């Protein structure tokens, strides 16, 4: 074997070792990763496909602290929509400003998906039903059916069983991230992705569809969920599960539930995606079932459709799965109205 070939093999092995160390030791890895932009964020969908044409700089707001849980009148719990600070402050803080009530946003890094296991999560933090509160529980549309199965189940905090420990030791997202974003591979990868898009029309698989005018990326999982047939039985089952959660929250903690399903971007802007089928009315159907079961809810899909008119500013970012500041503020206004109806809002105390 020639010296040149030996050197190539040695370089490959060393590069692999470098990537593993860079991924697993962040302080080392950070030296070889392009710096994150300051003052703005790049959309999550842009990060998936890295197509320059869809790059947008999204302003990020430094979140202010939400009210302490003991003082709160309203609790919010949700996925990335409720924890997003793109364009404006946290949903909980905007809601507090709108209603004048004290709002606490439930969040946890130690508990796996508290928004999927609200009962187990409240139990894990030793929540006491010392006063009547309202919980605004949010889920993105594509996860509702899945979460329907977990709302009343026991949750798993990270680290309380062997599987979770193994998961933590073995998850290599950090290594994969470092491989893709280190100073050597990142520019090559981005060039390749843009070359494939411009010349062959190929986009990363996580992007299921896109529109060029106006520019808009659609997440593959949203499209899959949009195309999935959701039978009446499936909708009823999800509603049953949410109703059971609502009853359990009331009984155990004296909490009144308000349930919000935030539509996938694809559901609202599907007209921009090529070959999109018409909306199957999942959110309105679920809301009707919830109302029938006495669970307070908000049909965010119908709400957003009213604002999705030509010439109006977008409700979602074109390169991100989340809502814009406008989308968030529309939701805050509507949620405040519902809460006012439940006697939780104090308009006089508005911030």
């Amino acid at each position, binding site marked *: *074997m020639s010296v040149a*070939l030996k050197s190539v*093999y040695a370089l*490959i*092995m*060393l*590069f*692999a*070792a470098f*990537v*593993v160390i860079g991924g697993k030791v962040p302080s080392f890895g950070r030296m070889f990763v392009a710096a994150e932009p300051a003052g703005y964020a790049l959309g999550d969908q842009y990060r998936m496909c890295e197509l320059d044409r869809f790059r947008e700089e999204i302003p990020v707001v430094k979140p202010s602290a939400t009210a302490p849980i003991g003082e709160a009148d309203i609790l919010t719990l949700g996925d990335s929509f409720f924890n997003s600070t793109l364009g404006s402050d946290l949903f909980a803080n905007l809601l507090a400003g709108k209603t004048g009530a004290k709002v606490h946003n439930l969040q946890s890094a130690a508990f796996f998906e508290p928004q999927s296991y609200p009962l187990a999560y409240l139990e894990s933090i030793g929540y006491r039903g010392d006063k009547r509160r309202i919980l605004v529980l949010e889920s993105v549309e594509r996860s509702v059916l899945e979460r329907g199965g977990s709302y009343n189940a026991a949750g798993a905090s990270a680290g309380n069983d*062997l*599987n979770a420990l*193994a*998961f933590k030791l*073995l*998850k*290599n997202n950090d*290594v*994969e991230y470092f*491989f*893709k974003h280190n100073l050597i591979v990142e520019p090559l990868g981005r060039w*390749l992705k843009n*070359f*494939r898009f411009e010349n*062959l*029309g*190929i986009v*990363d*698989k*996580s992007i299921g569809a896109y529109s060029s005018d106006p520019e808009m990326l659609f997440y593959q999982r949203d499209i899959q969920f949009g*195309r*999935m*047939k959701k039978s009446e039985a499936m909708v009823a089952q999800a509603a049953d599960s949410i109703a059971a959660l609502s009853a359990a929250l009331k009984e155990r903690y004296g909490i009144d539930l308000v349930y919000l399903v935030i539509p996938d971007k694809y559901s609202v802007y599907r007209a921009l995606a090529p*070959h999109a089928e018409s909306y199957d009315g999942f959110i309105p159907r679920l809301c009707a079932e919830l109302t029938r079961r006495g669970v307070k809810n908000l049909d965010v899909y119908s709400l957003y459709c009213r604002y999705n008119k030509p010439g109006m500013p977008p409700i979602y970012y074109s390169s991100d799965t989340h809502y814009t500041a406008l989308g968030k503020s529309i939701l805050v206004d509507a949620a405040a109205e519902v809460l006012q109806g439940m006697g939780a809002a104090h308009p006089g105390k508005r911030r």
Partner: protein
Amino acid sequence: MNFNSIEFLLFIPVLFLCLYLAGERLRWLVLLGGSCYFYLALKHLYLLTALAGVAAVSYACGIALYNCRSARGKTALFWGGVAANLSVLIGMKYLPFLERNLNLLLGEFSQLPAIPQGRVLVSIGVSYFVFQAVSYLIDIYLEIEKPERHFGYFALYLAFFPKLLQGPIERGGDLLPQLRSGGGFNQENFRSGLLQFSWGLFKKAVVADRLALYVDTVYGDLHAYSGLTLLLATYLYALQLYYDFSGYTDMALGTARMFNVRLTQNFNAPYLSRSIAEFWRRWHISFSRWILDYIFKPLQMQLRDWRDLGTALALLVTFLVSGIWHGASWCFVIWGGLHGVYLAASLFYKPLQKKIYRKLGLEKSRVQQVWQTAVTFHLVCFAWIFFRAQSVPDALYVVRHLFDGASGLTELLSAHGDTDLAIVACSLPVIWLVHLARERLAAGRDFFAAPALLRWGVYFCLAAGLLFFNMDSNAGFIYFNF
């Protein structure tokens, strides 16, 4: 860990680095540790526990069987070992299916309370290493092989990562000596292994995953389609499954080759078969050999007095087992049953078939070959409907509507863009050409002795194909589920 993941592409050089640092004496330990890590990366600790359990039981049983002098003791040990291994497989893969069906029966015919449903476990790889363990015990019981005395090598035989998740199912006699021999870094094995791995990746990432777009769209929402669209989706599924599984096998064989191990070839142009029997000699070869040697042959011996009827029955049972091995669902049982029926029926109609060909003057003609290949392919495709459908009613829907118009065809073809269609259409002849070239190479020609221009042309095209046309989907392999 998927072969088509970045994680795996980093895992291989790191493993080589560890091998280099550890030296030849600890090769088995590094490979075993690497294999355990590879399996653990699926993030289900109980899978490794099951593997360790099967390895310990089979290792101990193997030695005890070899040392046992009494025939009764031997039989008891053998069946004990086989039962222990199979109980792991049944417990992890079939219990929910059994519980579900027992509850259905109980609900139908009695007032007894339903059996509580257990947790559904992930069983990736379990059926493969259990089958290997069983074959190891059978070979020792029949005194074909001697037991492995070194537990490390034995555990590595079951756990060797290139074939752990999806086969090939290796016999102890083939694999253990290779694991023991080692041999250090071998440039020739490394480059052929790398080439085969890349070729497998091309089949998976460029062709199979692209075909999946069309197949999944149709089979994910069957009732929106009918006739020609269902037919097309079924043909495409036949191709997808083949390129997915043979792509995986190429990657497994290539990876093993890099570590100086030659695994069993699992495919040999199966869709060119002229009979179902030939199909099973060309499709998932290591599995076909396993069921032939360890299920069909013993059964046929037992039923030999019934002549053709006995053979037919043995075939039927063997392929029903094959169906169940693929998954705990009635769809797989029907799929296996269909292949059993095809093979059993062929025993009886073969003489008649010969007569017809002779009368028509087609015997051994090109027309006969093409006709037989086409019929076999369609019989296989028909059975794939049950293999792919998510439930028996879904499969029956496809069967009932196969010749019922062509609804959804235009939408299907336009939904995924022209580029995907063009890439699939161009890739299929390329794969065919490579198959022909590989057949020639197998006949004694060495690719690496070809002119540098040709070799580098191939490397360049393969790398360009992978970089520019891969699907980026990191999708799992279909046979992981089995």
